[in-house]
């Protein structure tokens, strides 16, 4: 590989890719060729930088200039000014890194300085499509050492001592899981990776696979060696085409380099990896359902025990871990369990990636040490809610998790603390809601999701989720009674106790947690037929206040002719005709229209 003076890193994660980062790369290359700088600069396509709100992102090294919201047409200026003349393109620099005469490191910005990147260590740094770059960052060295110097039991012991717990949500100790699979009798065993990231609003696993697929490949080979398996499967969502493609490339390159296949590192150990595409079923994130799906069937869960470690894929002992869990493993083996054990809290070690989304300024991907408070994530890293709105609640764990109200913003993020306040770590989706979000509506949204995604195998989940959703519909439409609320609570208990798998067992969580922390909102819907956040359409009434100057803009935009009044005089809305489409409110320049 030739050495060059400048490296131009361009984010090619799904977010930036959607905003045309491919065109930016093409244009950069075009201008580099045009300016005859191809011996001086190289464009590198990387995985996600994390701060998706500023995308597409281009970073130029060695200066570390962090350009945000770059357009394909900006490529010319970046090459001509920065690469050719060595002048920063100030207008594109991320504000927080701008200094009078120079730039400060991106690592000192609020978004990055509270973070610690282990699972995402190579994302946004290496080109995920070149195995050499992964190797240059010590990739596959843990595998080499393991295969040539360590016994399977030694590897499992390191993981056990590190305190790593499953990052898919449940938090089961990873070392113990490996031990079970190792100890299970049988000649044929399997290793599987759960990349069926189904939580709406979560994209951690996708970003790891897009930015650093080899870390998962390496960990799976290690797992194969540790438990005595020769075949692995990655079950990944078909909706993630970029991640699938990069994983395919990674597997192909690993085969070419002899890290997959027969006689790996000349040790006689043999291991192969296959990709299986999911087909859009949330329940397949549940381990037994995922296994059933890889076998080619409807993805319905099976009762446990027997656990997959004893009887899993094709009836054989199977080790199943989540993408983020695997991504941590090469790091732990390289740096030692002691290094990992030092990070985090007493019972939750290491870091956790969160996909920060919703009503937050810095949407994106963040990795923080366990035990970091929600406040740090929301206010310091996330930059709070946009438009100066008030933070109302954070939702973790998707359809299986709960809402954390603003009053608990100082809760440390770890498995136990989140469970204690009725939420859960979940896989890492962290959706921020502000004062304009209705918590009953959010609960209904998640139940609507679980109704759709319930596989139908067990009755409590199939019928229970439907009934709960109907009750919530009734409440948001303004026909709810206080008995409906107690009936809801009752159903929550039945689902949690009697459902076959985690989907049904945890489906009540969004309802239980909102009922617990926002009961007054439910009661306002039922008793006063009012939605305090102004979201539930059936409960809204629109009216015009004294700020109206009679400009008639609203009259013209109203699709049902519900607004009347004389020019330059205050108008009125006929509630019988109003369909609550909000068109007038969007059009009014004088804040004269109110809803409530």
């Amino acid at each position, binding site marked *: 590989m030739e050495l060059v003076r400048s490296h131009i890193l361009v984010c090619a994660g799904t977010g930036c890719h*959607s905003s045309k980062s491919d065109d930016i790369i093409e244009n950069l290359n075009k201008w580099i060729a045009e300016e005859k700088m191809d011996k001086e600069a190289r464009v590198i396509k990387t995985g996600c930088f994390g701060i998706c*709100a500023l995308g597409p992102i281009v970073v130029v090294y060695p200066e570390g200039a962090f350009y945000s919201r770059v357009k394909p047409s900006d490529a010319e200026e970046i090459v001509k000014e920065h690469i050719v003349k060595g002048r920063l393109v100030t207008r594109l620099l991320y504000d927080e890194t701008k200094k009078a005469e120079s730039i400060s490191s991106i690592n000192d910005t609020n978004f990055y300085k509270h973070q610690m990147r282990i699972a995402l260590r190579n994302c946004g740094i290496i080109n995920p499509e070149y195995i050499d770059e992964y190797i240059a960052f010590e990739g596959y060295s843990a595998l080499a050492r393991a295969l040539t110097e360590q016994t399977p039991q030694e590897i499992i012991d390191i993981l056990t001592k590190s305190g790593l717990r499953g990052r898919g949500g449940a938090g089961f100790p990873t070392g113990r899981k490996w031990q079970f699979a190792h100890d299970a009798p049988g000649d044929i065993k399997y290793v599987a990776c759960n990349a069926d990231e189904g939580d*709406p609003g979560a994209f951690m696993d996708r970003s790891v696979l897009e930015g650093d697929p080899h870390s998962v490949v390496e960990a799976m080979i290690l797992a194969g060696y540790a438990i005595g398996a020769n075949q692995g499967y990655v079950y990944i969502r078909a909706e*993630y085409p970029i991640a699938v493609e990069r994983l395919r490339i990674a597997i192909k390159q690993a085969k070419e380099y002899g890290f997959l296949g027969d006689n790996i590192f000349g040790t006689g150990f043999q291991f192969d990896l296959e990709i299986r595409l999911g*087909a859009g079923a949330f329940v397949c994130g549940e381990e037994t359902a995922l296994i059933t799906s890889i076998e080619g069937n409807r993805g319905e869960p099976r009762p446990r025990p027997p656990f997959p470690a004893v009887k899993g894929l094709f009836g054989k002992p199977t080790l199943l871990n989540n993408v983020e869990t695997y991504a941590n493993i090469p790091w732990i083996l390289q740096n030692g369990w002691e290094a990992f054990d030092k990070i985090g809290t007493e019972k939750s070690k290491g870091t956790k990636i969160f996909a920060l989304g919703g009503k937050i300024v810095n949407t994106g991907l963040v990795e923080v040490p366990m035990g970091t408070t929600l406040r740090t994530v929301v206010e310091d890293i996330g930059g709070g809610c946009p438009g100066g709105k008030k933070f109302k609640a954070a939702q973790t764990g998707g359809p299986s998790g709960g809402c954390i109200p603003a009053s608990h913003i100082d809760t440390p993020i770890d498995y136990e603390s989140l469970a204690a306040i009725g939420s859960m770590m979940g896989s890492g989706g962290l959706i921020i809601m502000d004062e304009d979000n209705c918590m009953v509506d959010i609960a209904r949204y998640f139940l609507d999701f679980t109704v759709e995604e319930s596989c139908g195998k067990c009755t409590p989940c199939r019928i229970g989720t439907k009934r709960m959703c109907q009750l919530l519909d009734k409440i948001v439409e303004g026909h709810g009674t206080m008995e409906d609320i107690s009936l809801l609570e009752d159903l929550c208990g039945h689902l949690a106790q009697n459902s076959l798998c985690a989907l049904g067992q945890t489906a009540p969580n969004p309802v239980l947690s909102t009922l617990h922390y926002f009961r007054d909102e439910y009661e306002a819907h039922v008793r006063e037929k009012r939605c305090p956040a102004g979201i539930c359409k059936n409960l809204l009434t629109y009216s015009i206040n004294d700020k109206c100057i009679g400009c008639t803009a609203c009259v013209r935009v109203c699709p049902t002719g519900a607004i009347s009044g004389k020019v330059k005089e205050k108008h009125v809305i006929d509630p019988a005709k109003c369909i609550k489409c909000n068109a007038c409110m969007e059009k009014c320049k004088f804040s004269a229209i109110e809803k409530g």
Partner: protein
Amino acid sequence: MPNTKTVVPFSATPEQMKALDAVIASHKGQPGATMPVLQEAQEIFGYLPEEVQLKVAEGLGLSLSEIYGVVSFYTQFSLNPKGKKQVAVCMGTACYVKGAGDILERIEKLIGCKAGSVTDDGMFSIDATRCIGACGLAPVILVDGDVYGNLVLDEVDGIIKKYMA
């Protein structure tokens, strides 16, 4: 099955049928082949009509009911053809809390069909999809493969009309 069968009569080119035969042959005997075969079959035909399912069933030595069971279980598999231009509205949580519901409603009105269906002339189909993972751009829609992010309701009309021309 009658209630889910498409109204559009199935027609396939000999090339398509040949491609399907090749897919079945390449996966035959592989454990858990059903899903990969169906995924590749859907890529060939755009959807999975009864005729294709029957062919897959025969090819893999399974019953039609087993194949139909799998097809109807997963949302990715479609029993009906999609429109020439596909509109997908992300309904992931991040998009939902930023008003994806209203955007979907507006698009349904504009195009004249509901989410999960196709217009009578076969031009457009709308899907309310699960999270597509571009939460940083919420709310997001995909029209004919193009991504539109950070949408505000007022932009929707302009975007959709571009594809109607």
